[in-house]
């Protein structure tokens, strides 16, 4: 009976999630590209073998991890600060919250174009400012060693509001008298944050981290528009590499393999986060 009630949900999960996954898994065992006229021909583990020895895949994996790790950390940190700020009784709280959410509401491509203009060398506002201060324009998007930082910056700008809002919702579930009780016990703001707010906010922090980690590991459109993966592929993500192989090279077999590699990475890291939570809850019991 309960299985029957669950059936629609299971069906939805199956169609929306499992089916594409199975299809990718199947495709990754085939050569399916322009060279085969898009007809899938079984090629054993050739795609996987290629993936293991594909230096570009591993370089993109490291670049994706770097992007996700740094932007996730910054977003959690800034998101928490923003949430704590918005949690204070402010005048026009509704309007302030709406304004803060604006970057999140903006379509990624529009946002990325905006950042491309902002970081333009030498006409972007940022470089004009630098020039106005007597400096020489900086190649924000043309310096392989640092360009990834600016993709992180754009991502942080866009996604911090989302994290902040999620954490704000979490803050609002904490009864105010808990903090008042600790205040009466003589705890300072940092002690209250560390000993009370953060532990109670942990489930929300974890949720935000899970969401953002999965999203950041799959980053595509932001990078595609902002840098196109350049310069010298220094900002290329796994998502972009999978896209290149699929939509540009029409090599769907290998694209599916890259996609699955990316999926395994997401799975590994998110389940790592979940295990971390279990361990953390265990120590509290």
């Amino acid at each position: 009976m309960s299985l029957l009630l669950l059936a629609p949900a299971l069906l939805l999960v199956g169609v929306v999630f499992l089916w594409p996954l199975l299809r990718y898994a199947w495709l990754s065992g085939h050569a399916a590209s322009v060279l085969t006229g898009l007809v899938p021909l079984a090629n054993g583990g050739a795609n996987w073998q290629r993936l293991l020895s594909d230096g570009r895949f591993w370089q993109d994996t490291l670049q994706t991890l770097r992007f996700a790790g740094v932007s996730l950390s910054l977003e959690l940190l800034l998101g928490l600060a923003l949430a704590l700020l918005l949690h204070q009784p402010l005048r026009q709280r509704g309007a302030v919250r709406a304004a803060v959410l604006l970057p999140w509401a903006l379509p990624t491509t529009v946002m990325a174009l905006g950042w491309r203009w902002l970081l333009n060398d030498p006409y972007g506002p940022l470089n004009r400012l630098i020039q106005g201060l007597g400096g020489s324009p900086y190649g924000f998007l043309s310096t392989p060693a640092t360009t990834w930082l600016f993709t992180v910056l754009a991502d942080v700008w866009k996604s911090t509001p989302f994290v902040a809002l999620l954490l704000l919702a979490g803050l609002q579930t904490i009864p105010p008298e808990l903090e008042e009780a600790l205040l009466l016990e003589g705890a300072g703001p940092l002690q209250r944050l560390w000993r009370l707010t953060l532990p109670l906010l942990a489930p929300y922090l974890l949720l935000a981290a899970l969401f953002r980690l999965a999203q950041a590991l799959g980053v595509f459109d932001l990078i595609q528009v902002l840098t196109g993966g350049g310069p010298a592929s220094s900002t290329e993500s796994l998502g972009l590499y999978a896209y290149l192989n699929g939509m540009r090279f029409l090599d769907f077999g290998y694209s599916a393999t890259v996609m699955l590699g990316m999926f395994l990475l997401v799975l590994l890291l998110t389940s790592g986060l979940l295990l971390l939570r279990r361990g953390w809850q265990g120590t509290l019991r």
Partner: protein
Amino acid sequence: MTGWFPPLPNPARRLIAVVLAFWLALAGGLALARARRVTVGVLMPAPFADATAELVQQFNRDHRSVQIAVSRGPLDTEALSDLAISSLLLGDAPYDLLLMDVTWTPKYAAAGWLEPLEPLLGDQALAGMAPGAQAGNAFAGHLWRLPLLADMGLLYWRTDLMAAPPRTTTELETIARGLQRRGAVSWGYVWQGRQYEGLSCVFLEVLRGFGGQWLQHDAGQAPQPALQSPEAIAAANWLSGLVRQGITPRAVATVSEAEALQIFGAGEAAFMRNWPYAWRELTRPGSAVAGRVGVAPLVAVPGEQAAATQGSWGFSLLKGSRHPREAAEVLRWFTSEAVGRQLAIRYGYTPVWTSLLEDPSLEAALPLLPALRQGLLHAELRPLTPVYAQLSDALQRQLSALLSDDQPAALAMARAQRQSALILQAAGETP
């Protein structure tokens, strides 16, 4: 029937019967006519759709049985490709005709998405077009595409800063350095250096100008990349040298067509490499350089012929079209001389027909015509292979590293050579 029909005198009954029969016949005829009316769906980037809108309206008025329905796609070449490929992958294509970039043809043909045109249009469909415009439409023994307009790389120069455009690479450097030293311009030469297809186009032109080739076709052998040749390394060196010397801004690693146009259009550069469309933007009233811009062939080393990368747009017939004959008819009309003339006069589109290219009466509307004619004579096609996107991507990666990361040219080209060889080898091995 008689029981239901009210009693009427005989003549009245006859009259009613005649009127009824007449109406039935009329309705049936109209339905038939509508059934025979065929709508041909065309997907093209929005600017092309805008430019051809009036002509399409005229076509739809003049033709009863065939109607054209234009879908406006995104302006960006890759975005249009993504849209087209997504709908093609879903199977039943919602369009009959697709306006394609020249580099897509072998890929789409190999994917089995295109219908060969010669059975519908005959073997002579390209006859009468400039040779530079004819190239790139046939692949593997079939004709897949007819060009709507020609496109090629051009050197834009400032007529107020020099008497004549440079012809060699050294001349360009000397003039640029002189002007920069005088403070007349901030930059000498701007071109497309962002990691994208435009960079491959720029490099191909320089490569040819240094006497090199992208792929080497030896008789009886599969084509091999020739990116590690002394000419190719010299070409790469020249490009990175422009950046090192400050003739080209370091920011070139982020520059696509629009950014180049922005810098040159602001009067801050002596030279620019761009496509013909830039002319209209630069001569528009209010442009900072209006009346001070000339167009010339790209530069080469002495003794070599400067080449212009060919980048045309053309129509292909998609497999699965329900009305291939009517679609072919529309395709022939779109690429006809008459439409080409209108588009050249109204929008400055480069015609593909020799008769138009050599028509002096068009020069008033299209001052660039002699330069375009000249360019088409030396148009250089990018490698005609289904794996072109991979080859270009491998080259862009290394060139981008060369320009942004101070990678030595010899190293960058050695890597590009090795990766290109692997791509071609894999392509040769697959059954």
